[in-house]
């Protein structure tokens, strides 16, 4: 019933609009073309004034809103290169807003100022090489300067990571991220192969014939040390994803079949950022920036930045993947099984008293050297 009434209402409104249009049309016919060129000067002037109003309202609105509110839109930055790219962004912004304002005013002011006037004739002004040279060369120079700043930053950001970089693997899949750390003992990521992935637990496709894989551990959050270079090794299992860490100004696609990298240095711990923002609930987050299916909008991963000490402590407290999935021990070749037991932190029968995970490193390097 309600929708019927709404329907009738809409039809009536449309009918009234149509009547107004018809009446307007008929009135137009009676007083047609009083000016010699058939131009309705009132309407022409109305448009000119509307353009002037648009110019003023949009520019004032733009500047007012931007200065009053831009801080709310600025994401706090928490990485070293992020400061550089942000500076570039704002430098570009000043250049762009400056030239935009000048051209915008020119465009709409001329539109207004040179509106039709039956007593005036337009100026025949077909070309001027000097002017054209000027506005070819000036943008070229300004753009060149912006490019050089950008290319410098780009080659720093995409250059090779240092040897000391903390390597972490991030894997995208529909619709979650998983993170793999190389483990505290060998500090090397073990090999993986997508054909070894299964439903029972080997979600990384970890290759257990590689001894580097024994102490690798999985994390459900991305933990990072502050002030140290981090190298993300990124891959995807099924379709394209994109690692997007908005506060760190990091974005890199995760591509099935190709490993991509992004290195960066976090500059503020989660705690420091909470203090700086005065928001005790603040958290860093990782999102997916490449369309990957219906859960694309929900691929959130919590990111925690620690002080280096906390970070080492957190890492040491993690259980290697192999220890969590002991049934995969049988995939380890017989000659490596002892190394596997030690590196994964299994309690060894007979030889040593129950080794705590934290107390293990010295022991493991020793056993590694003997066994190798």
């Amino acid at each position: 019933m309600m929708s019927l009434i709404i329907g009738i209402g809409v039809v009536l409104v449309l009918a009234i609009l149509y009547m107004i249009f018809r009446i307007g049309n008929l009135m137009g016919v009676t007083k047609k073309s009083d000016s010699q060129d058939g131009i309705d000067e009132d309407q022409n002037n109305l448009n000119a004034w509307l353009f002037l109003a648009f110019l003023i309202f949009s520019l004032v609105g733009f500047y007012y809103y931007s200065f009053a509110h831009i801080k709310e839109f600025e994401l706090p930055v928490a990485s070293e290169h992020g400061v550089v790219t942000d500076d570039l962004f704002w430098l570009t912004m000043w250049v762009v807003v400056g030239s935009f304002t000048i051209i915008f005013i020119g465009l709409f002011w001329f539109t207004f100022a040179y509106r039709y006037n039956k007593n005036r004739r337009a100026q025949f002004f077909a070309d001027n090489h000097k002017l054209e040279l000027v506005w070819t060369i000036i943008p070229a120079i300004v753009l060149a300067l912006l490019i050089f700043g950008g290319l410098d930053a780009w080659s720093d950001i995409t250059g090779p990571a240092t040897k000391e970089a903390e390597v972490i693997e991030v894997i995208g899949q529909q619709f979650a991220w998983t993170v793999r750390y190389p483990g505290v003992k060998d500090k090397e990521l073990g090999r993986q192969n997508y054909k070894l992935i299964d439903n029972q637990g080997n979600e990384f496709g970890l290759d257990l014939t590689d001894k580097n894989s024994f102490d690798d551990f999985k994390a459900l959050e991305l933990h990072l040390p502050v002030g140290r270079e981090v190298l993300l090794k990124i891959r995807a299992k099924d379709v394209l994803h994109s690692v997007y860490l908005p506060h760190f100004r990091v974005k890199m696609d995760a591509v099935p079949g190709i490993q991509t990298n992004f290195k960066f240095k976090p500059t503020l711990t989660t705690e420091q950022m909470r203090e700086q923002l005065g928001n005790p609930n603040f958290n860093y987050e990782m999102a997916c920036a490449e369309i990957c299916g219906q859960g694309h909008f929900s691929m959130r991963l919590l990111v925690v930045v620690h002080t280096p000490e906390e970070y080492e402590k957190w890492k040491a407290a993690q259980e290697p993947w192999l220890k969590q999935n002991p049934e995969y021990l049988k995939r380890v070749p017989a000659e490596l099984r002892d190394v596997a037991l030690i590196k994964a932190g299994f309690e060894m029968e007979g030889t040593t008293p129950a080794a705590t995970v934290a107390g293990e490193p010295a022991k493991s390097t020793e056993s590694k050297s003997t066994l190798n």
Partner: protein
Amino acid sequence: MATAAAHTHAETHTHHDEHEHEHHEGNFFTTYLFSEDHKTIAKQFLLLGMFWALIGGLFSVLFRLQLGFPDADLSWLRPLLGGWITEQGKLHTEFYLSLVTMHGTIMVFFVLTAGLSGTFSNFLIPLQVGARDMASGFMNMLSFWFFFLSSCTMMASLFLPTGPASGGWTIYPPLSALEQAIDGSGTGMTLWLVSMALFIVSSLLGSINYVTTVINMRTHGMSFSKLPLTIWAFFFTAIIGILSFPVLFAAALLLIFDRSFGTSFFLSDIYIGGQALAHEGGSPVLFQHLFWFLGHPEVYIVLLPALGLSSEIISTNSRKPIFGYKAMVGSMLFIGILSFVVWAHHMFVTGMNPFLGSVFTILTLIIAVPSAVKIFNYVTTLWRGNIRFTAGMLFSIGLVSFFLTGGITGIFLGNSAVDIQLHDTYFVVAHFHLVMGSAAFFGMLAGVYHWFPKMFGRMLNEKLGTLHFWLTFVGVNMVFFPMHYIGIAGFPRRYYSWTNFETFSGFADLNTLVSIAAIITFAAQFIFLFNFIYSIFRGRLAPANPWSSNTLEWTTPRVPQHGNWPGEIPTVYRWPYDYSKPGAKDDFIPQTVPYSETPESNLPHENELVKLEVGKGAPIIVPDNKGHH
């Protein structure tokens, strides 16, 4: 050979025309459906393009409902969308992606490529260069009907139970290749690829015709240096299309192989749906290279015709020559060439070699220079003009405004280091919707308002046109300008909702504002639709030259019949921009007026040309004309 052919063609025309004329009067099918007349084909493209624009616009309103009013109950849409509205009255998450994908595909290809180039290249090339019709009327007809088939295929995909393609309009594999990844990559994607293959055939048939016609069928005296900028724009657009669309065809073909025949061009190392696939050694990045090798020139395929139309309209209605004619042609040529070497700026963070990123940054920012030149030239054309705000002029000024607002943000995005943060955020959405979407759309509307009198012999209502313009102009600004802010705040594209993230959960108010503006803008298009249909039948009869314009199409009868000019094709003596020439009686001198008739306004070098004009209608020798006729 071409010379001889064109010559005999011209000689036999009078007889030929009458014959074809009768033929066309007699048969409904050959007159309105399978017509080989370029004007009818242009109208067919326009109508189908407008139909698609409504569908594409409706889709954007649907997903803006979700983004602007995430808590709203959308059950009332169930009669239209059926199962795509969930039990809770929400848009289905996957259908949301279908809408986004189809909105992009429809707008970029069906509306702004076929609807824009198809309409105006077809309509204006023969009329403005002075030809009876296109080089091949038959190919031209095929071009439309391939587009029609392509449209039917795409339309059919909308009604599949698994939905249309939903992997984004860029259809990146593996998402677009694997049915397991998303339902839309099943039959929906197959139909998308078939439809696009047909579309490419249509586009190539059209483009080859445009290029041939412009080169071979210009009338007496119509040298390249006297071509209106519209024709230059269509000419470059067609060449770009011929060179780039086949690459998309290749990419689509390889994707079909990967999907259906087990090849691994784009697929490698995939574990999905509980099993590892056999594909190895392919590269998803390769697809992106192929796609953007078309995809970037496509931006200019969409934009250049709009710039050409607006150049003509702005010059006419400012009553001034377009400023820097040669620079305008030169910058279009330069943009056309550069458009082929900037594609990888869409791929800075896809895992492509970073060195390529540096190269493409440089090339991309170079393309900003000719674009800037064009804007400056438009603004200078307005300066000291005597501006008539016809609806076509309003939309052309709107186009320049969007080209400026949207183009200038390309300076951020083209810079690889800055692009890291902005890539795939709403900043990009704002950028390309303004510079390519809205600018080209405004160019198309400007063209319809300006050439409607020649298409249908009647005038559109200017008051409704003005209303339509202001609602759309303000609306589009309100839709896309706020997106810059949301983009700076880091909001990613193609998100169904942002509430999963603390980082992105603010600014719901801005998203609501954008959605409301989008709905108003969409509704305003119905004013145009009404005006369009009403005026075809009841509009004021158009005078022969309603805008006091110089170009050739206004020398035809009110409604040009098959063959365009009842008698001989007029000869051209001058460039198309002699507006407000000092000394001249009127403020315009059509291209068909010889210099010998205008001694009072001739410039010194033009007086030299008078000697070469033997007589009206006779062959004339102009130094830069190679003598096609």
